[in-house]
């Protein structure tokens, strides 16, 4: 292909490319979220055993998926930054962390709200819940470590180490419901089996996941742009940018 990918790996060109993409992803996130919530609240039928309370699934499951997915993506970009010394990938990893932590917190919170009426408890120390809590701690550790280091290069690399060490937790979260007898139910959607949900419910959930995904991309791009500006503030192109918009 004729596209020069390396061109976009320089912070300056990525800055402008991201600027153009942010509106697209933001609009996609808003539209998908509206559609997903509409399906979730008005179209999807009542569940045969949980009644209306199951509708929290439309936020809970996408948030939980994103919390794990974003961690893997963050570790991957960190690892690339560590291995190939590419500044941009480390910046993206730094930008992902707060969003990932937000989704982890959301998954835990909505899970508690769901657990109280259904299971009869806000919280149990079963393997799924505990490992998801550890994930939140890992995000927090990553962010605090980076915040404590003044030299951005060292911050990137040190963060990458903790992100990569923490990756072992992801399969533990995912498979915890299979490996141990947990109170948490198993996965309703998986690659190998047909989904164990009614089609409209599944559609709503998938659309909400897509919405969360688009939202995450948009926010991460915005945050990456801010990080780029901060780190490159002494370069000529940022100077020109400031000159252009006084």
């Amino acid at each position, binding site marked *: 292909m004729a596209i020069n990918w390396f061109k976009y790996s320089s912070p300056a060109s990525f800055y402008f490319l991201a600027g153009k993409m942010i509106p697209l992803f933001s609009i996609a996130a808003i539209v998908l979220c509206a559609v997903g919530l509409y399906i979730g609240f008005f179209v999807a039928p009542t569940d045969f055993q949980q009644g209306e309370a199951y509708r929290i699934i439309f936020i809970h499951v996408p948030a939980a998926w994103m919390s794990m997915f974003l961690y893997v993506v963050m570790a991957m970009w960190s690892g690339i930054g560590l291995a190939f010394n590419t500044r941009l990938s480390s910046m993206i990893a730094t930008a992902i962390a707060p969003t990932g932590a937000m989704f982890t917190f959301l998954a835990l919170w909505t899970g508690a709200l769901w657990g109280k009426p*259904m*299971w009869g408890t806000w919280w149990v120390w079963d393997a799924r819940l505990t490992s998801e809590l550890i994930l939140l701690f890992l995000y927090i550790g990553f962010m605090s470590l980076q915040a404590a280091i003044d030299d951005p290069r060292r911050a990137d690399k040190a963060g990458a180490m903790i992100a990569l060490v923490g990756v072992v937790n992801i399969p533990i979260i995912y498979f915890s419901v299979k490996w141990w007898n947990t109170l948490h139910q198993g996965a309703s959607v998986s690659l190998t089996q047909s989904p164990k*949900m009614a089609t409209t419910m599944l559609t709503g959930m998938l659309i909400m996941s897509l919405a969360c995904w688009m939202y995450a991309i948009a926010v991460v791009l915005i945050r990456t742009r801010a990080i780029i500006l901060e780190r490159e503030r002494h370069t000529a192109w940022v100077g020109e940018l400031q000159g252009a918009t006084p």
Partner: protein
Amino acid sequence: MKPRHKKLAIIASSVTALGVASILVLNAFQSNLVFFFSPSQVAANEAPVGKSFRIGGLVEEGSVKRQSDGVTVNFVVTDTAKVIPVVYTGILPDLFKEGKGVVAQGKLANDGIFRADEVLAKHDENYMPPEAASALEQADKARQTVLVQ
């Protein structure tokens, strides 16, 4: 030792250590690291004696009986092989129904009745509208009738 040999020795011992570690993990998973025990495990004396633990299974159809005080409930937990009678005083979660999953924490008394301090409902990963559920149930029944015939 030459540096090259030293390196090989380090790699070999690392791989061995990781291998043994995975064997140990697999070994552990065959044993009893669980959130709750099934009635069969309790019957096989795999559950703790005289200590608080959790049992999990299905609430047997037709076994739920409310006592006269209105808050004490008797029911039977089954995993289709073995059963454990349970007594519990307190508020039950909404999802607690006959034929559905349940996890109860408490102690097994000498009379073989499990005295629960806490009862949690465990639901499965199936989500569908009630009509679909009843249709499925009917299909299931129909199939069983066919099998019986």
